[in-house]
């Protein structure tokens, strides 16, 4: 028995495709009638959604308050820059750590729960952070938010790269995105990721074979919040500001919709698809009608009713049907890699 047939490629084809597509956007986006900032924003949401899916898809833990950690990342980046004088890299690292630290605190209160109670608690904590962001004027700038965040210059040894243009910031964010996605991909195939999936499927059994279920759930939340913090920090650079709206309940809901529509429950890449569709829908549908969310919401309902596994699920089913036809009607080989 060899393990070779079961391992995951170090860098799987969808990752090549995603990164190559993103990297090439400066070449063709304008001629497609779009603009570079859009690609930057899509990538940031992809990152946020991928991190969120570590919780929802892999650990089975529904967080409806994840906008909070995205927002904390955005504010943390701004404050570290404006009050701490931190450079881009340091401020982004700080954003990740601070978001993860708040995530650790919240997770300590909720990791013994699951299902609807877990979801409700995440909403409650999310609202607390949103409220603080609105009310603590001296720190966050209140309703106006934190303005004049600088994109600044990326200082590497012997090399200074100004990030002021959308293209420059885009490429910087692409490097961050790629590193985090490689890390996440490794994580979900590591012993940690596999045990996390086991915890999702059967918490009781996981405990009875000796796993520390609480600690796995806690760590998943911390890591997910940290990734949200990185995405939020990049968003603050992109927007050159941080404001309470990014922590709002509906922003937390958007990321859930991205993950579900894309198919995060059945595929690592679901959130990537979902974030792309969501932001494109916002811009393209939004150009025609103010009520684009109404149409998107209806699409979401249809999707949940008829294709609960999302776009990635539809793709997997289509491929399975194709393979069956190729095999002359034989059943597809039953392998258990549902979230592959």
């Amino acid at each position, binding site marked *: *028995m*060899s*393990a*070779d047939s*079961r*391992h*995951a490629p170090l860098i799987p084809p969808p990752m090549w495709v995603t990164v190559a597509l993103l990297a090439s956007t400066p070449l063709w986006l304008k001629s497609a009638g779009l603009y570079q900032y859009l690609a930057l924003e899509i990538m940031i949401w992809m990152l946020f959604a991928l991190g969120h899916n570590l919780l929802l898809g892999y650990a089975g833990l529904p967080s409806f308050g994840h906008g909070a950690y995205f927002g904390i990342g955005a504010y943390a980046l701004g404050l570290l820059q404006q009050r701490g004088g931190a450079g881009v890299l340091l401020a982004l690292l700080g954003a990740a750590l601070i978001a993860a630290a708040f995530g650790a605190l919240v997770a300590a209160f909720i990791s013994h729960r699951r299902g609807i109670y877990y979801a409700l608690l995440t909403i409650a904590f999310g609202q607390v952070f949103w409220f603080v962001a609105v009310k603590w004027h001296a720190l966050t700038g209140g309703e106006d938010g934190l303005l004049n965040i600088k994109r600044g210059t990326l200082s590497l040894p012997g090399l200074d790269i100004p990030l002021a243009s959308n293209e420059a910031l885009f490429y910087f964010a692409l490097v961050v995105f790629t590193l985090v996605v490689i890390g996440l991909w*490794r*994580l979900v*195939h*590591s*012993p*940690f*990721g*596999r*045990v996390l*999936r*086991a915890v999702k*499927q*059967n918490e*009781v*059994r*996981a*405990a*009875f*074979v*000796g*796993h*520390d*279920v609480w*600690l*796995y759930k806690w*760590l998943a939340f911390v890591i997910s919040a940290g990734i949200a913090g990185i995405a939020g920090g990049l968003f603050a650079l992109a927007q050159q500001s941080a404001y309470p709206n990014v922590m709002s309940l509906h922003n937390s809901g958007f990321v859930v919709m991205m993950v579900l529509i894309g198919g995060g429950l059945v595929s690592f890449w679901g959130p990537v698809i979902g974030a792309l569709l969501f932001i494109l829908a916002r811009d393209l549908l939004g150009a025609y009608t103010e009520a684009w969310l109404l149409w998107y919401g209806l699409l979401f309902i249809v999707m949940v009713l008829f294709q609960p596994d999302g776009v990635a699920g539809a793709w997997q089913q289509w491929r399975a049907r194709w393979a069956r036809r190729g095999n002359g009607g034989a059943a597809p*080989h*039953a*392998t*258990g890699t*549902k979230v592959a």
Partner: protein
Amino acid sequence: MSMALFETQNLQKRFGDQVVLQGVNLSVDEGELVGIMGPNGAGKTTCFNVLTGRYRPDGGVVRFAGEDIAGLSPRQIARKGLSRSFQLMNLFNDETALYNVLLATPSVRRRGFSMWRDLGRDAAAHDEAAAVLARVGLGGKEDVTAARLSYGERRALEIGVALAAQPRLLFLDEPTAGLGSEGTARLAELIRTLKRQLTIVIIEHDMPFLFGLADRINVIHWGQVIAHGTPAELKRNPWVARSNLGQLS
């Protein structure tokens, strides 16, 4: 005097004002196969749940390898080398048979917080898990998702997951539940091969099955051990013969 590997003294458990266990005394020596039987609602499964940490006992002592484990969590008890199967099957349904076992091995448990190495590339761990599957008769089923296995295969996998933890003491909760006579015979064969390798405690309704395997049997009724002894002794026990615990053929 030799010390028992596992024993309980005066074990108590109640839910609200309903007393489920009142002073259960059990003792299991190393290498033994001990049976627990009794009518429905006698407290057998509650007893298992208390012994394996799912419920906290209200009183009494649970001693494993000389250590009091009463009130420890399932995780702590599992890590001491006490493993269990479940009456209602409790598997990782979306995982393959191989991963169900693999995820329960001590080697994965130890490295569970490793976040970089691909578990799929760990040939040694895969071989270890495949060996456990072969032991419970599931060789060749490695890549079949647990949810797609037949009922009898799922029963075997249930035991495989418990075995994967490399326990010193294995608790089996009604392993024949829902199995036909052929499946029961196959399971008896499996347990007979395990019997000499580790210490086993079985809860069972199927009396011929239990009497054919056990070294000693405890009869639990009204939350107490009302009789115990070897199968031969118990067959002569007037109370057991009189009570409707099942007819021996």
